[in-house]
C-alpha cells in the first residue's frame, strides 16, 4: 500500500451553467466546440462520433453528436433529458447541464437551471429573438440564475454583420428589462467556425467584448449565494455515546447560506430556543468559522431539543418565516396534472410535510407572459399557487435565499416528484 504526502492544490472554482436553445440554434455544436477547443474531448469519443457522422452519410465530424446520450435519443435524433458534461481549464472546473430546448421540456430547463450560476441563451442570428428565446429568458429569471449570456450564434450566416447583432441585442434587452434581468452579456459568435467561443477568430474584430470562454472563466461568482443570512437545516443528530464522547451531541448539516463563528448566538427554529455555538467540528479538526456551502457538525452550549428538520439561524440577523401558509411560483413536472382536491408532500430543506393547494391564482402563458385563469396545472405549466401546510416550515422568499425558498412536491401515492416550487411570499 502506498500512501502519499500531502501536497497543495490550486483552488479552482466550480461554475455550473446551462445552455438553452434548440438543436437548430447550434446548441450542441456550441457545447461540442467548447469541449473541443478546450481540449476536453477524448480521442475515443472523437473517433466514435466521426464513425457515426460517416454512418449517417455526412462528411467531417458533427460535434453535436457528442451530446447524444441514450439509445432512444440517437434513434429519434432528439434529446429527452438533462445531460451533465464536465470540462476544466486551469482557472475553473465547469459543469454543463445540457437541457433540450423544445417547448414540452420546460421542466428540463427548470431542473438544469436550479443549480446553475449562469445560463447561455442561444439565438440564431438569422432568426433574431423568437418566442422561444423569451421563454428561456423568463425561465432564467424565474429560477433566478445570477448571470445570463446571450449568444448570438451563426454570425457566419449573416456575414458577421454588426447591425444584425446590435438589433438582436436591442430586442432582447427591451424584453429583459421587463423581467428585471440584469447582468446580461451579449456575445456574437459562430460555434461552427469557432469564432468568439474559445478563440476570438478574425471575423468579429468590431466586437470589443470578451469571448465566451473568457467570460466563463472570469465572471465573479462568489456572491451567487446569500452570504448574509446564516441558515443551517439540521440533517442528522450525531450521538456516538462512546466512552470518550459520552456527552457529544453534534448537529450535522450544511451551511446553506451565510456563515457562523464559534460563540455566535443561534436560534433554533421553529422552537425559538437560543444557545451559542460551542464548536464547529469537521473530520479534519475543529474550525472557527463555517461558510456556505460547507458541510459541518455543530455543537451548542446548551442541551436543547433539536432534531432533523429544525433550522439553526443567527440570532439578531434577518429571521426567516415560520409559517404554515405561503404563496409560490410552481413548475408542474408530472404527466399527472395538479389535483386541488388531493394532499401532496412537500420537501423543503430537511423537512417533509403534508400540504394542500388552497388556491391557484393563475397559470403563466410562458410565450406571452399573460396570466390565465386555471383550475389545474399540467406538465410544463408554471403558475402561482397558495399552499397550506400541515406543519410549519422555516423559509425565506426564494428571491432572497434559493436554499430556503425552494421546495419540491411529491405525490404520496407513487412517490414521484411532481412539481418544483419557489416561495414568493409567506405569512407570519
Amino acid at each position: 500500500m502506498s500512501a502519499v504526502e500531502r501536497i497543495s492544490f490550486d483552488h479552482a472554482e466550480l461554475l455550473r451553467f446551462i445552455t438553452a436553445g434548440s438543436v437548430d440554434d447550434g446548441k450542441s455544436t456550441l457545447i461540442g466546440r467548447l469541449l473541443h477547443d478546450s481540449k476536453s474531448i477524448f480521442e475515443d469519443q472523437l473517433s466514435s462520433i466521426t464513425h457515426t457522422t460517416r454512418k449517417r452519410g455526412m462528411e467531417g465530424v458533427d460535434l453535436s453528436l457528442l451530446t447524444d446520450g441514450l439509445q432512444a435519443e440517437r434513434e429519434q435524433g432528439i434529446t429527452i433529458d438533462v445531460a451533465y458534461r464536465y470540462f476544466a481549464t486551469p482557472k475553473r472546473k465547469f459543469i454543463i447541464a445540457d437541457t433540450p430546448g423544445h417547448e414540452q421540456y420546460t421542466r428540463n430547463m427548470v431542473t438544469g437551471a436550479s443549480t446553475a450560476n449562469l445560463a447561455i441563451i442561444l439565438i440564431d442570428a438569422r432568426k433574431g429573438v423568437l418566442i422561444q428565446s423569451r421563454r428561456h429568458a423568463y425561465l432564467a429569471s424565474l429560477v433566478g440564475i445570477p448571470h445570463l449570456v446571450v449568444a448570438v450564434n451563426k454570425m457566419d450566416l449573416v456575414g458577421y454583420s454588426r447591425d444584425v447583432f446590435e438589433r438582436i441585442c436591442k430586442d432582447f434587452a427591451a424584453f429583459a428589462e421587463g423581467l428585471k434581468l440584469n447582468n446580461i452579456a451579449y456575445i456574437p459568435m459562430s460555434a461552427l467556425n469557432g469564432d468568439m467561443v474559445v478563440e476570438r477568430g478574425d471575423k468579429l474584430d468590431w466586437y470589443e467584448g470578451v469571448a465566451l470562454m473568457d467570460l466563463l472563466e472570469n465572471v465573479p461568482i462568489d456572491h451567487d449565494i446569500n452570504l448574509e443570512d446564516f441558515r443551517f437545516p439540521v440533517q442528522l443528530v450525531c450521538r456516538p455515546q462512546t466512552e470518550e464522547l459520552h456527552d457529544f451531541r453534534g448537529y450535522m448539516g450544511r451551511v446553506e447560506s451565510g456563515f457562523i463563528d464559534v460563540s455566535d448566538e443561534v436560534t433554533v427554529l421553529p422552537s425559538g430556543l437560543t444557545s451559542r455555538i460551542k464548536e464547529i467540528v469537521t473530520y479534519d479538526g475543529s474550525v472557527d468559522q463555517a461558510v456556505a456551502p460547507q458541510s459541518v457538525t455543530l455543537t451548542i452550549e446548551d442541551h436543547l431539543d433539536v432534531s432533523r428538520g429544525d433550522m439553526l439561524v443567527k440570532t439578531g440577523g434577518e429571521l426567516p418565516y415560520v409559517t404554515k401558509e405561503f404563496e409560490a411560483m410552481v413548475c408542474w413536472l408530472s404527466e399527472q396534472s395538479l389535483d386541488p382536491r388531493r394532499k401532496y408532500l412537500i420537501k423543503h430543506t430537511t423537512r417533509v410535510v403534508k400540504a394542500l393547494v388552497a388556491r391557484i391564482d393563475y397559470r403563466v402563458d410562458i410565450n406571452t407572459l399573460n396570466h390565465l385563469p386555471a383550475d389545474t396545472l399540467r406538465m410544463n405549466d408554471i403558475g402561482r399557487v397558495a399552499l397550506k401546510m400541515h406543519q410549519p416550515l422555516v423559509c425565506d422568499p426564494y428571491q432572497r435565499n434559493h436554499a430556503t425558498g425552494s421546495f419540491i412536491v411529491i405525490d404520496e401515492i407513487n412517490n414521484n416528484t411532481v412539481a418544483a416550487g419557489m416561495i414568493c411570499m409567506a405569512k407570519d
Partner: protein
Amino acid sequence: MNTILSDVQEFITPVPGSIMKGEPIATKPVARQLGHLDALESEAIHILREVAAECTNPALLFSGGKDSIVLLRLAEKAFRPGRFPFPLLHVDTGHNFPEVIEFRDHRAKQLGERLIVRSMEDSILQGRVVLRSEYQSRNAFQSVTLLDAIAEFRFDACIGGARRDEEKARAKERIFSFRDEFGQWDPKNQRPELWDIYNTRVHPGENIRVFPISNWTELDVWEYIAREGLEVPHIYFAHTRDVIRRGNGLLPVSRLVQLQEGEKTENLMVRFRTVGDMSCTCPVESTAVSVEEIIAETAITRITERGATRMDDQTSDASMELRKKEGYF
C-alpha cells in the same frame, strides 16, 4: 408590456437588504470561495447524510477501487465521530484482482466498519447466473448477485461510486436514481432532481441507487486521493506485467486470459485506470509510480477512462445503458 409582466415583477422585486448581483456585502465573512474539491466534497457529504436520515436500510458499495475508496473517506467526513449508518457491500465477481480484494479487507478492518461480501460464485452454484465459459467477462452478471443481496438484506438504498463523466448513459443519471422492484432503470422516466432537494421515497421492494460523486471527474478523484493522502491498491501504479495486445487494448495475462492464435506475451510497464473484472479490464502503458504522476498523466490523457480500460463497453454504443436497465449500478 408592464401589465403582462406584473407577476414577474412582483416575484423578482428584491427584498430590502437582499444581495443584488455583484454588490459588495458589508457583513461578508473573512471567507474564501471554496475550491472545486471542497465544493464537490461538501455536496457529497450532504448527499450521504440525506441517505442516512431518510432511507431505512442503506448500504455502501465498496469494491476496493479508487471511486469507492473516495466514497469511504467522504463517509468518514459525513459521519465521524459516529459510526457509518450502513454496512459496506461488495459483489465479488470471482474475477477480481487479488491485490484489490486484499485491499478491500484491509480498508474495511482499518475503518472498523461492517463488510458484507456476496459472491457471484454462489450465484453460479445456485444456477442464478449461467455463463458460457469461465473466461467470459462477469461484469454484466454482477447485477444478479447485487439484486439478490438487495433482496436478502432488504436494502432500500445502495450508495455507489459511479460518475457522470464515465459514460454517456451515466451522464443522464440522477444522483438519487430510482429502481423498480426488478432493479431496473428507466431512463425516460427519471424523477426530476432540483436544487439539492432529493426525493428518497420508495415503496417496499423498490430501491434507490445513490451516486454522491456524480459530478466528479477522473481527475477530481485523483486530486482528492492526493489531497486526502488516501491509500489505493498497488495495481493503480505503474508496474511491469505480462500482457497481450488485443483489439485496441492490452489484456493482463492471468488464468482468465488465454492466448489466441498469433498473440504473444509481452512484459510492459503498465498501470490500471480501473480495477474491474480481470478478464476485461485493460491496463494502460504508464510510468506513473506516484499519485502526483498519475494526476499529471490524467490531466493530459487523451482517452476516456472506460474507453481505455473496459472491453465490455466497446461492444456497442449502448452497452452501459443496456446493463443499467437490467439493474447494474
